[in-house]
């Protein structure tokens, strides 16, 4: 078992109380808490070198630019990218997916082309494709889930043809914890000349990620789900893909020359970073990446498998509790969705909150998946490096209390 308990001291928020109880934070799939190392990096930037990047010749601007570009290099090395130039800073996963959908929609996709998705996608990997489908006439096709909550690849042969231009899949579901079958989809994409986009919002924070080994064309993720600040995310793309992708936002920074009626784009990655970027947030993400590398992503994943396994085991003892997701912790992520008897997820979340326990309740921005599971809402406990078995025990105790509140036997 990987014991990371000592890390808890780095997270100031974990020492606060909620409703008279020490906080148990089980909502890291929504956003993670931040260690002092990240808070300090952001603070240090604002206190000592705040300036716009890529603009001035003055000392502060040079320092800020170095720190910003330094963060890019650290993120690149964290995911084993070929070059920092393959790392584009965005507002987050959602904005990166929109850039890809619109960029390809503008000059590559044609009526009759298909985009292949899975029904477990987050709304941010569905709605942008629906929007460009309206403009381009492309068709969206979906892979289902099996009864074991795995992406059903048995339908792939039937669905896959030369019209499929883009395959886009979540690396890890934020609802069921299902791992996306990226390797298989990359192989399938090669056979028809499609590109592969991986939504790494849940994958990258929790799993050692090597874009070279992954084999996808794009990998996108959010800083705030991996100990970093909000407002910063990453669109990694293979160099040649970033070359062919049209920019979707124009403005300062993203040009090399501007004439009255046309302009030329700056080189990648600046081509996609119009306007003043989220500088402090990028620097904070750089610090988060350093923090995770110090723990080691293999240890992060081992800890997650351990705590997810413990949670699944303990939750199995709660009467009338149904978990929606794969049962083998080594084949899934640490987002655990469940339903408790006839108690609605919002009621579960309200009761847990009274015991200081933060979980998410609702459709988790994945309504097509919820329809497939035939549930309107689930409660979700999700774990990260600072969670302990003790947190799981407190969750289980409070779920037993919830049963009592609803007049069910202990």
């Amino acid at each position, binding site marked *: 078992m990987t014991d990371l308990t000592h890390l808890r001291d780095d997270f100031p928020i974990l020492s606060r109380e909620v409703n008279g109880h020490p906080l148990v934070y089980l909502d890291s799939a929504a956003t993670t808490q931040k260690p002092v190392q990240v808070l300090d990096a952001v603070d240090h930037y604002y206190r000592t070198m705040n300036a716009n990047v890529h603009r001035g010749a003055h000392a502060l601007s040079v320092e800020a630019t170095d720190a910003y570009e330094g963060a890019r290099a650290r993120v690149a090395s964290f995911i084993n990218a070929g070059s920092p130039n393959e790392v584009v800073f965005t507002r987050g996963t959602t904005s990166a997916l929109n850039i890809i959908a619109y960029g390809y929609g503008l000059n590559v996709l044609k009526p009759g082309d298909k985009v292949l998705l899975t029904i477990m996608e987050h709304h941010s990997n569905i709605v942008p494709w629906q929007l460009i489908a309206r403009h381009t006439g492309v068709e969206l096709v979906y892979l289902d889930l099996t009864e074991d909550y795995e992406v059903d690849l048995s339908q792939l042969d039937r669905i896959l043809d030369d019209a499929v231009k883009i395959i886009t899949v979540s690396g890890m579901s934020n609802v069921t914890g299902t791992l996306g079958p990226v390797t298989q989809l990359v192989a399938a994409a090669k056979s028809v000349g499609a590109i592969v986009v991986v939504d790494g919002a849940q994958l990258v924070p929790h799993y050692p990620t090597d874009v070279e080994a992954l084999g996808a064309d794009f990998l996108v993720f959010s800083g705030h789900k991996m100990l970093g600040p909000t407002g910063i995310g990453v669109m990694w793309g293979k160099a040649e893909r970033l070359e062919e992708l049209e920019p979707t936002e124009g403005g300062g920074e993203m040009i090399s020359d501007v004439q009255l009626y046309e302009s030329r784009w700056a080189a990648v990655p600046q081509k996609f970073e119009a306007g003043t970027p989220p500088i402090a947030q990028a620097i904070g993400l750089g610090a988060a990446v350093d923090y995770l590398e110090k723990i080691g992503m293999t240890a992060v994943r081992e800890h997650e498998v351990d705590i997810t396994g413990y949670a699944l085991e303990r939750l199995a003892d709660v009467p009338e509790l149904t978990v929606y997701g794969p049962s083998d912790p080594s084949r899934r992520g640490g987002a655990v969705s469940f339903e408790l008897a006839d108690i609605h997820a919002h009621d579960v979340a309200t009761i847990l909150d009274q015991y200081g326990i933060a979980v998410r309740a609702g459709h988790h921005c994945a309504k097509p998946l919820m329809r497939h599971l035939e549930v*309107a809402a689930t409660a979700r406990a999700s774990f990260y490096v600072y969670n302990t078995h003790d947190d799981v025990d407190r969750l289980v105790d409070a779920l037993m*209390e919830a049963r009592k*509140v609803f007049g069910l036997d202990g």
Partner: protein
Amino acid sequence: MADLKELYRQVILDHYRNPRRRGKLSGPHVHAEGLNPSCGDEFFLDIRVEDGAITDAAIEGQGCSISQASGSMMMDAIVGKTIDEVRGVSGQFKLMMGIDEGEDPLDHERPGAVLGDLEALQGVRKFPVRIKCADLPWTTLAEALERAEV
């Protein structure tokens, strides 16, 4: 956990588990739908308005105990009432919940005297994020009344 006991009173759980008038109306009626996109709660309402009164009603949908119980209690509170009476109940409900500002409409000496079972929803006031759950059926009712052009 006194607040939790206040929130989930027995009568609320009873309405949640045994909702009144579940289904659809046949024959002439107006239909309205209330959705809470942030949490996914749905509330579907049919009402029949005849001679300035609600003569029949039915509800469908799904959601948390608070929204569903509030809808079920609303059935008891509006069927057989004139539109004016219904607007009065709705106004008192919104005052009780603190949705509208004004004097507490309840008579605390005589629990249930003013709003019947609906008074059990007072406990929701201590949980501000859940007030919109309790209100969902009532915003849906307002829309249905608008459609009925009464």
